[in-house]
């Protein structure tokens, strides 16, 4: 296990560079995101296994997410708490090379299109998803999930500590907040997002903005859906995680088309985490392995037992004594926010970052 500590900052997101096998970008917020600046760190792993900071950029507000430019090895995009996205060049110091400011509220996620590599997507607390080109100041397209009935649970309501900055205080009360948006790795015109109203929405960018360009389904029993990810091998399979502490796996072909009946997931991990699930991410090397991070300070690697050898098994993770858990990483001492699979070397290397200010690199398959 390799480690690096960013003093005074809490890690919110981490991503391996798609160009260099030893480079990571980490975004963070000052003082657990309570008050103060954000900071982007560019970390390099040297041949001796030591991690050192090759560059860093201080920002006015907390940084929530990071995405490397898939077309340019030195450019990295960050999602900032003041509603802006900033593109930094790792070879330059201090200032960004572009600022994209259209969102009215905090930008929670950003993701670069892996197929049509000259676009990226962002999602915000203002309830919109925006598609951008790095060459244009203004967004190409703004997507808004249909207004849907918010399901209120009568048993309890739970506040998740997303950011504790004073001006972010209403985040968890806003049910239209879009926590994550992502391009499909199979279709450059497909975008998925998950919202505070518990709905997962799929947009088709080829269709004009209308109610027919999107499909949605209730993902997490009315509680916030915090994260979603496309399976890299199965175009119709996605995973989602939420405040109900559950990870669900869905086959988009089996989701309800008109919301007349609730969609039913094909597999789920119940009780795998003790607190809300912050991030899920499918392995780039396996079609049935994914990782999850949680507010319970752990990061877990799971096997989706419903799919083996290119076909569905009809089983769920409930039949496994460990619920399909293949590895549990417990070294973090605060909420684990970000994690990413390494595309390089032996499969199984994962970088994770948490509010303890640590960035750890570990292998999920080494015993």
């Amino acid at each position: 296990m390799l480690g690096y500590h960013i003093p005074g900052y809490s890690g919110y997101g981490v991503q391996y560079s798609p160009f260099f096998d030893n480079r990571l970008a980490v975004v963070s917020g000052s003082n657990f995101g309570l008050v103060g600046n954000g900071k982007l760190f560019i970390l390099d792993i040297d041949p001796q296994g030591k991690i050192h900071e090759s560059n860093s950029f201080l920002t006015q507000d907390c940084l929530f997410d990071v995405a490397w430019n898939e077309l340019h090895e030195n450019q990295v995009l960050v999602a900032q708490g003041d509603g802006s996205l900033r593109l930094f060049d790792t070879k330059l110091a201090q200032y960004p090379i572009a600022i994209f400011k259209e969102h009215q509220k905090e930008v929670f996620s950003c993701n670069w299109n892996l197929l049509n590599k000259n676009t990226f997507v962002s999602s915000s607390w203002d309830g919109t998803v925006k598609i951008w080109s790095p060459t244009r100041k203004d967004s190409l397209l703004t997507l808004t999930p249909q207004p849907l009935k918010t399901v209120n649970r009568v048993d309890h309501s739970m506040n998740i500590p997303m950011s504790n900055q004073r001006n972010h205080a209403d985040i968890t009360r806003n049910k239209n907040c879009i926590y994550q948006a992502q391009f499909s790795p199979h279709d450059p015109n497909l975008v998925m997002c998950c919202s505070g109203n518990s709905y997962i929405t799929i947009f088709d960018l080829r269709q004009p903005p209308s109610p027919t360009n999107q499909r949605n389904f209730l993902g997490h029993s009315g509680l916030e859906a915090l994260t979603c990810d496309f399976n890299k091998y199965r175009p119709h399979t996605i995973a989602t995680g939420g405040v109900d502490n559950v990870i669900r796996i869905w086959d988009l072909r089996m989701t309800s088309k008109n919301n007349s009946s609730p969609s039913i997931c094909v597999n789920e991990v119940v009780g795998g985490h003790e607190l809300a699930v912050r991030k899920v991410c499918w392995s780039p090397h396996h079609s049935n392995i994914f990782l999850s991070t949680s507010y319970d300070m752990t990061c877990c690697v799971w096997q989706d037992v419903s799919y083996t050898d290119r076909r569905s098994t009809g089983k769920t993770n409930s039949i496994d004594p460990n619920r399909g858990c293949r590895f549990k990483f417990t070294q973090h001492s605060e909420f684990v926010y970000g994690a990413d699979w390494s595309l390089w070397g032996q499969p199984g290397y994962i970088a994770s970052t948490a509010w303890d200010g640590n960035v750890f690199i570990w292998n999920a398959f080494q015993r």
Partner: protein
Amino acid sequence: MSCQSNPLQQFVGKSDRVGTAGFGARFNSQEQFPPTRSIEHSFLNGQKNDGFLENKFLEVQQPSPVFPAESVSNVWLNQFSSMKLEDPLEFDNEYKKLYAGYQSQQTRRNVAHVSPALHRSIYQPVMRNPVANDVHFEQEFEALERELQDDKDELLDEESPLDYEFQKIASDIVNSTSNSPSPVSSKLSGSKFMGLMRDISGGLVSMRSNELRKSDGSVVGNEFTPVMDNMHKTNDFDVL
């Protein structure tokens, strides 16, 4: 810890107090506390009730007349009662008699209850003696402002309302996690973030202009550095 920093609640609280100690003081005791005879009792037993009513709820239901209403009401009532209609669903005479008694009590009571001076001050903006009323209102407003100012000073001595809200959020986080008997709660108890939340909820650390500070003024964690919205000029975009 209760949340009393809401200015609206404070104002409502003040208004209540003014209502009883301020304007209320102008009622005489007889008007405020009418004799205790039940209107329902007299109504049901067909007794004539010349006294005042006990039921305060009826006060609220009955709008106070804008002008001395006895004569007008009586004219209207007399007109109405003198009308002769053949109605098969008409109430019987006994009921009508009782109801008439009830109505007259209500009218008398309303007129007697509101003191004429207050009556004018509320419903007639043009005063016969504006100077005297102005003096009275000024006194009332001064008293109200003094009360509000006193409370404000007390609040400022401790912390601002936003800090109070911040403190409340922190204590909510601490309470929500400490009550859960799960294995993660032991991990949470050792968490520096939860420690900070406990300090904030206990008032040891507070937020001051983008920084966290202890009560002695020392900064906790990172100091804030303002960052300008400057950009590098680059030709990289031409390549994309």
